[in-house]
């Protein structure tokens, strides 16, 4: 069997994985990058709007403290505040660094990186390239990896001496020596041959779980691999009940339902209307945001040109608020003909400006839906977009509870609390990708010996099983039923009875998935690959449903019809998921979050905190303010 020895194995080659790998290699570690797709195709390419970083290029009043406050507000104060702090402080450096690696962002008049408005961000903050920022980011990181390989070729005669990409390769198990990580086991998609990595440190950067839902903006890769690998290796997941339904996905034609319509449409002036032509978002500004958003269309419109004297339009509320509002309008019978609402930029900007600022939206609607967005409104509705929950990690190093295991980007949890702001994902994966790479390198430096090489017989038997079952169940059908179940029963609005029902279905699907069979050979066999991925999707779906059933409040990406309010007591609590190595026995435990550091909590007004915190916490706040 093919066997490789590395210092750091990075699983996932999106923004977080590549940034982690670049850092590990720059720290002198021999690094492997493993990705399920070809190099440069990861889901990061689909990010459209931009990377949030308080550079202050457009509005000089912006700084890390404003960004930190916006992030905490967006996450309804459930965020890991240390992560939110590091993120806000380091994002500008991470964006500037990309420029030195060849990225070409759009510019301001004085030649700096331009920044655009986005939901929940007080100032224009997103570094962007039209509406294809994710592509720019991944290409830049990909080209940085190539640059390092060229350097290694000059120095060592081998471009892959210190950093190598294993493309179209899927990891199915992490390997351990005692309590600590010792490597990873997987298969080549192309040949079906097995491959083993012996390595003391593994960085998970596998992204999200959207493929457990029917209507999603996520690609096939988003099967929760890293979430599941971490659980099976003994690490913990937090915040799994919080899933972001992006308010604006395409609703028609059916085959593209869920594909993302960037928030930049609203950031650049687009408005949401119902079938009566009303800008309904004015009816949905929640109390916690009342004083920060415009109350009339005139004020909202003025804000685009004069932010000092006007409040922002409510179309730019955080995503969870907008998604729920659209959901409510459609339910009330005020939706568009194709079951969404209208998103109109055609009456707001000249056609040429729309094509310049939103080229890929223009292209996407024209090619896929026969809609010219410069002439008529789009029809949009919520789509499963991002999971806030993930591997519980140390904020500074990305280390999980299992020694040698690290996680960064969407697969990690905590940074975004109960809801992520648009633009905070691209900056998250740069900031914490780098930190996980550093963390892994430092961990290795502290080891006295490499871990023992692991046995892989069990992992092999597990992976090959679906091919050996003849006449088993069709994995595509099991997958589809899971997607329907999660969409209908653990979707944007949740009820105890429905979530409990979903858990029963998942239980049955777990049994069925153990019986799936895949015909054909081991060579590039998608039916076999899906049968293997099902284990991960089912495990992660169970975590989502169990946590959603326990959290009896509504906050961010978790809305309970039977518990519509936000509870200060629940804000203090995280739900922590664990599982057995055979993917059984998922448990969820409550854990109390540490209180925010005094200097950070003092950045907020008491009147705002009163909406979120318990009396005891407010007393702590008063003491902190007094001290400073």
């Amino acid at each position: 069997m093919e066997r490789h020895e590395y210092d750091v194995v990075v699983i996932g080659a999106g923004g977080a994985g590549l940034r982690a790998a670049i850092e590990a290699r720059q720290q002198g570690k021999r690094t492997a990058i493993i990705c399920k797709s070809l190099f440069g195709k990861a889901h990061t390419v689909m990010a459209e709007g931009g990377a949030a970083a308080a550079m202050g290029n457009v509005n000089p009043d912006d700084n890390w403290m404003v960004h930190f406050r916006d992030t905490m507000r967006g996450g309804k104060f459930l965020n890991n505040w240390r992560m939110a702090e590091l993120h806000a402080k380091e994002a500008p450096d991470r964006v500037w660094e990309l420029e030195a690696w060849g990225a070409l962002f759009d510019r301001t008049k004085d030649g700096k990186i331009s920044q655009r408005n986005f939901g929940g961000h007080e100032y224009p903050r997103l570094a962007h390239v039209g509406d294809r920022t994710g592509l720019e980011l991944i290409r830049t990181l990909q080209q940085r990896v190539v640059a390092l390989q060229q350097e290694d070729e000059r120095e060592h005669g081998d471009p892959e001496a210190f950093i190598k990409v294993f493309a179209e390769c899927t990891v199915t198990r992490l390997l351990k020596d005692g309590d600590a990580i010792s490597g990873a086991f997987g298969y080549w998609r192309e040949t079906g041959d097995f491959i083993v990595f012996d390595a003391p440190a593994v960085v998970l950067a596998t992204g999200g779980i959207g493929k457990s839902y029917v209507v999603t903006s996520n690609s096939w890769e988003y099967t929760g691999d890293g979430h599941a690998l971490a659980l099976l290796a003994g690490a913990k997941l937090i915040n799994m009940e919080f899933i972001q339904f992006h308010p604006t996905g395409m609703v028609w034609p059916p085959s593209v339902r869920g594909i993302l319509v960037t928030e930049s449409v609203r950031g650049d002036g687009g408005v949401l209307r119902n079938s009566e032509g009303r800008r309904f978002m004015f009816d949905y500004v929640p109390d916690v945001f009342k004083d920060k958003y415009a109350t009339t269309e005139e004020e909202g419109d003025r804000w685009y040109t004069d932010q000092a004297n006007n409040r922002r339009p409510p179309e730019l509320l955080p995503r969870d608020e907008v998604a729920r509002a659209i959901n409510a309008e459609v339910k009330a019978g005020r939706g568009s003909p194709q079951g969404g609402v209208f998103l109109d930029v055609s009456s707001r900007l000249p056609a040429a400006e729309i094509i310049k600022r939103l080229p890929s939206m223009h292209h996407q609607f024209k090619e896929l839906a026969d809609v010219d967005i410069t002439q008529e409104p789009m029809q949009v509705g919520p789509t499963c977009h991002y999971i806030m929950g993930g591997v519980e990690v140390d904020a500074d190093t990305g280390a999980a509870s299992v020694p040698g295991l690290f996680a960064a980007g969407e697969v990690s949890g905590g940074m975004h609390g109960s809801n992520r702001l648009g633009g905070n994902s691209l900056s998250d994966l740069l900031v914490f990708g780098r930190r996980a790479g550093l963390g892994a390198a430092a961990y290795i430096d502290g080891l006295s010996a490499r871990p023992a090489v692991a046995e892989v017989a069990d992992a092999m038997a597990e992976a090959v099983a679906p091919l050996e079952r003849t006449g088993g169940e069709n994995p595509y059908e099991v997958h589809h039923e899971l997607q329907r179940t999660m969409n209908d029963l653990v979707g944007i609005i949740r009820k105890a009875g429905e979530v409990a029902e979903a858990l029963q279905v998942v239980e049955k699907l777990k049994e069925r998935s153990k019986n799936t069979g895949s015909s054909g050979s081991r060579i590039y066999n998608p039916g076999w690959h899906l049968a293997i991925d099902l284990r991960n999707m089912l495990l992660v779906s169970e975590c989502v449903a169990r946590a959603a059933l326990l959290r009896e409040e509504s906050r961010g990406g978790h809305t309970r019809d039977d518990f519509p309010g936000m509870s200060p007591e629940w804000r203090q609590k995280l739900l922590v998921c664990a599982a057995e190595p055979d993917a059984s026995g998922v448990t969820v435990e409550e854990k109390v979050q540490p209180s925010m550091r005094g200097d950070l909590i003092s950045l907020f007004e008491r009147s705002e905190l009163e909406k979120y915190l318990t009396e005891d916490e407010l007393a702590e706040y008063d003491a902190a303010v007094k001290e400073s």
Partner: protein
Amino acid sequence: MGYKAKFRVWRGEGGEGQLEDFTVEVNEGEVVLDVIHRLQATQAPDLAVRWNCKAGKCGSCSMEINGRPRLGCMTRMSTFEESETITVTPMRTFPVIKDLVCDVSFNYQKAREIPSFTPPKDVKPGEYRMQQIDVERSQEFRKCIECFMCNNVCHVIRDHDENKPAFAGPRFLMRIAELDMHPYDEVDRKDAAQEEHGLGYCNITKCCTEVCPEHIKITDNALIPMKERVVDRKYDPLVWLGSKIFKRSSV
């Protein structure tokens, strides 16, 4: 408005294969990739195809549909007659691994042969100042989603494996142009473009531009200007000819 479509899909692995006939349901608004996925789910579970975003942003699902290089996710079924047989084959220029999946490692090899972005050493991150108009030229080329259909269609290598070692293909000649036009890149790339990456093989037939799903004007905006920069040092009759033929009509 669903109907049954006739599909002929290339199936095979290990250098052998044949077109296989399918009759498959098609629904309103679907694209070719949807139909391929339906074949996987209902008739051919091991049918191999690459795909990711399904929105024309990642460049994974390149294939040849009725002989034309296309992204499966951006080719709507409504562009065909219901009675038409739709033939789907893998890209021809690259070795087939299985069914619609090719070995595209040629492209990654070429990417590594082009010297990376090289900024001046004394400009620190955060100090870059560039005007929008100066970055737009390279930005156009950075729209590339690396579907590799331009390299697939380019006749220099489509039926001439022997040219592959000496020719980077439109994708990577465009990458050289992108870096050459980057306001902060310091490497002189002109000689290498011609001598090491085969710019001279290009005779500006514009096939690459025609198939580009991002509508990048590869020939007019990257390859011809690059040839013009090279011509300061070398005489290339095609540049002279191209400037007579193409420049005039594309004004």
